[in-house]
């Protein structure tokens, strides 16, 4: 057991190192450089000496291997670096954005999992019928729509036309610090459209996983027994069969939870939501290497952590794994 944990730990460490290296070298391989962000728009009119001085100040004049070494050393000291673009430490920027992303993505993930599980189970129960095909077609149709398009449609209908929900941001500035109930409700209202977009797009994965898993389980003897006992349809479906069919869904959920830290770039951009996805996108455009490295590192660690948690939780959820 100890050996297994040790080898897994080594695997994770190697993975983290490789990710760090990729995160470091890939952005630098892209065309363009961060000078315009370092110096502002009039970089062109700076003298070559002034430009060089700027690169020296930010350590960008050194060979890549040296820069990588400095990056690793800083990281070991808990320093994620300093953002060129935002003039702030990467850690503080991420600390500001991460809660909003977690609020957005975990809410969406929870809702899409609940809806996916219920619809998937129900579709499997009615396998081959019009309800099954209809649900599957609807879910797949939603999945195949571009995310910006869904977001725009929701924005146009529920934001611009009906004006039920706010169209951008995470809250209205003047409510913060005032009435706390109004502020919480305001945050939830700002969450409504981006979360709905994500749920519309993301339910398909859970739905398909649940449906196929449920189809397997529905053929089991204990399900037939439960039906024979005259239990209600919903009880057999969600309590007896559903619980056992949930195992693959739990895996999907845990993995998605890891990626949730990365936010949803398109949705966050369309709704001007202050999350990690938008932050990453802006960092790519600005060639803000430290910010890119920092955000990718946080995402990598979150995915690895989610994997570890999934590994640890799985035996608790599925006794068969424990016995082997």
């Amino acid at each position, binding site marked *: 057991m100890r050996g297994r944990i040790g080898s897994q730990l080594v695997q994770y460490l190697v993975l983290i190192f490789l990710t760090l290296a990729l995160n470091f070298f890939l952005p630098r391989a*892209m*065309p*363009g450089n961060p*000078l*315009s*962000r370092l*110096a*502002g*728009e*009039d970089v062109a*009119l*700076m003298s*070559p000496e*002034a*430009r060089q*001085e700027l690169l020296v*100040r930010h350590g960008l004049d050194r060979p890549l291997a040296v820069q990588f070494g400095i990056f690793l050393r800083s990281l070991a000291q808990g320093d994620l670096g300093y953002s060129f673009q*935002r*003039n*702030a430490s990467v850690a503080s920027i991420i600390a*500001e*954005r991460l*809660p*909003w992303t*977690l*609020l957005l993505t*975990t*809410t969406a993930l*929870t809702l899409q999992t609940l809806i996916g599980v219920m619809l998937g189970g129900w579709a499997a129960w009615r396998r081959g019928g019009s309800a099954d095909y209809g649900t599957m077609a609807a879910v797949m149709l939603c999945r195949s729509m571009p995310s910006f398009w869904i977001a725009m449609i929701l924005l146009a209908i529920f*934001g*611009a036309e009906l*004006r*039920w929900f*706010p*169209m*951008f*941001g995470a*809250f*209205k*500035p*003047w409510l*913060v*610090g*005032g009435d706390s109930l*109004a*502020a*919480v*409700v*305001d*945050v*939830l209202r700002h*969450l409504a459209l981006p979360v709905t977009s994500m749920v519309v797009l993301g339910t398909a994965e859970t739905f398909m996983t649940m449906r196929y898993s449920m189809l397997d389980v529905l053929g089991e003897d204990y399900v037939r027994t439960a039906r024979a006992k005259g239990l*209600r349809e919903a009880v057999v479906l969600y*309590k007896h069969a559903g619980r056992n069919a949930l195992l693959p869904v739990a895996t999907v959920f845990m993995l998605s939870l890891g990626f949730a830290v990365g936010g949803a770039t398109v949705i966050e*951009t369309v709704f*001007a939501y*202050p*999350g990690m996805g*938008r932050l990453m996108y802006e960092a790519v*455009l600005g060639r803000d290497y430290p910010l890119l490295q920092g955000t990718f590192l946080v995402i990598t660690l979150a995915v690895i952590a989610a994997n570890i948690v999934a590994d640890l939780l799985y035996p608790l959820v599925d006794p068969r794994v424990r016995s082997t």
Partner: protein
Amino acid sequence: MTQGGLEMVSRSARGRRWVGLVTVLIVLAGIGTAASGAEPPQLRIGIHTEEGWMTPYSYVTGYPGLPFVRMIYDTLFIMNAERTPVPWMVREYSTSEDGLTWTLKLHEGIEFHDGTPLTSADVAFSYTFMTLHGHGPWQRSLRGIKSVEATDEHTVVIQLERVLPLFKQVPLAEVVIIPRHVWEGVTDPKTITDATGSGPYRLVEYQSGQFYRLEAHPNYFHAEQKPSVASIIVPFIPDATTMFMALKAGEIDMGTRDVPPEMVADLAGTAGLKVERGPSYVSTLLAINNQRPPFNQVDFRRALELVVDVQYLVDIIRLGQATIGSPGFVHPMSPWVAAVPEAVKQDFAAAARLLDGLGFTDRNGDGLREDPQGNRFQQTIITSAERPERVRVAQIIGDWFKQAGLDTVVQAMEHTTVQARVWPDFDVTKGRDYDLAVWGWSAGVQENPLNLWEVLHTRGTLNVGAFSDPAVDAIAERLLGVTNRDDFRPVVEELARTTAGKVPFITLWYPDNSYAYRPEAHDGWVYVRGLGILDKLSLIGPVVAGGGPVGPVGARSLPWIVLAVVLAGAGIVVARRKRRS
């Protein structure tokens, strides 16, 4: 109870649950609507980029970043709506006979936002500090200054190394005054987050990724021109469609994005919205790599120019909302010219004659011309994929080139990649890797006649096409010798005329800029010649009533609180279900 009875109970329970859910949604929408209805009177300006702490050293873009910096920090002179420099913080000024010594007297009673009096020592400090620390336009603007001295509390004497004909414009109306007590001893100015200035508005809040809040400077010095709104909220809305929809829905009062031509009529026709449209000094052009054969031959470039119908492009792509590009590059509305060379008319036959003369003929009958050696010839137009207008113009021009027998490929790519190919490291001495590119220069390039030297001279820092012509160089050199503002005009006109025949690039158009706003919230917008309405001039004037500051900020903890509420709700549901089962 019978089975039917159980089903009925179950159905009615389900029904109750749906009713409950719908009620919660209605209540949520209701509370939210009530809450949003309680917003205090303040101007909401949607901004499409985030500009850091908006100090002179941390803002990111010339537009919309710099106009906000100018609202927070004042300058000694100001550019009026006609872009003529007029005294601002300066009460009176005089120059020595040789034009090398300027004596400036400041208004009395000018205060920084923190209440510290602004004196001539702050002016001297600002000019010296910015000469030493380069960023954005500051250091460049201060070239040619020998010394800056505070002779008394309100008098500054500036000695110049040479006569600067545009001195009132650059640097007096350009360089902002920073407080010495904040910036003294600072070695890395980009790390400063204290945006204390003396401008009409002070930055009171910056929420990364979300918004800025500015409030009127209560003790602004100017007798007539006071901040005209009490509070300005500046939310970040990166997506253009979201910004325009938010404008239509009344969630913001003005958007910093230029309204695309196809949306102007729609927004102008929306109740409660107004669109202000005017010419802009921004230029869109087809950059040509003059270093690479055959683009290094002026006749080849002329042939390219002859097949481009700029009038058609303005009509079709800009829907007529642009000024046709002049081959002399200078905007016809520029204060530095009375007239500019007219655009060349499309003439495929003339282009064919030029190409034939250069040996570019179709030898294999495939409809495309081979080069003089008989090899296949293909040229590429690169353009930014993020800008649909530019992709479209590249495609139309590419089709015209093909019609003229020149095989042309259009490549749309990330804007930063286009920049890296055309202008690697923003340094023209590092070469270039393109044939043709849809390119553009910001308004600032046309504003200052000395920038024409940068664009057209062989050694110019904005000469991204490596254009080199002795006649153009000679005229451009004369620009540097001008000592009187009024003497620029004949030189600029001659430069434009000479440039027109050499085709260093093809100037396509200067777009009109259109900005939408809600006059009900603020109707004092001023269209500044060649630039637009986002300017300090639009937000100063007679004082009007407005909301004051709102409560302390707890935004950092807000997402955690709501996340806790959501999770607690989910926990309660799960616990209740468990208890029931």
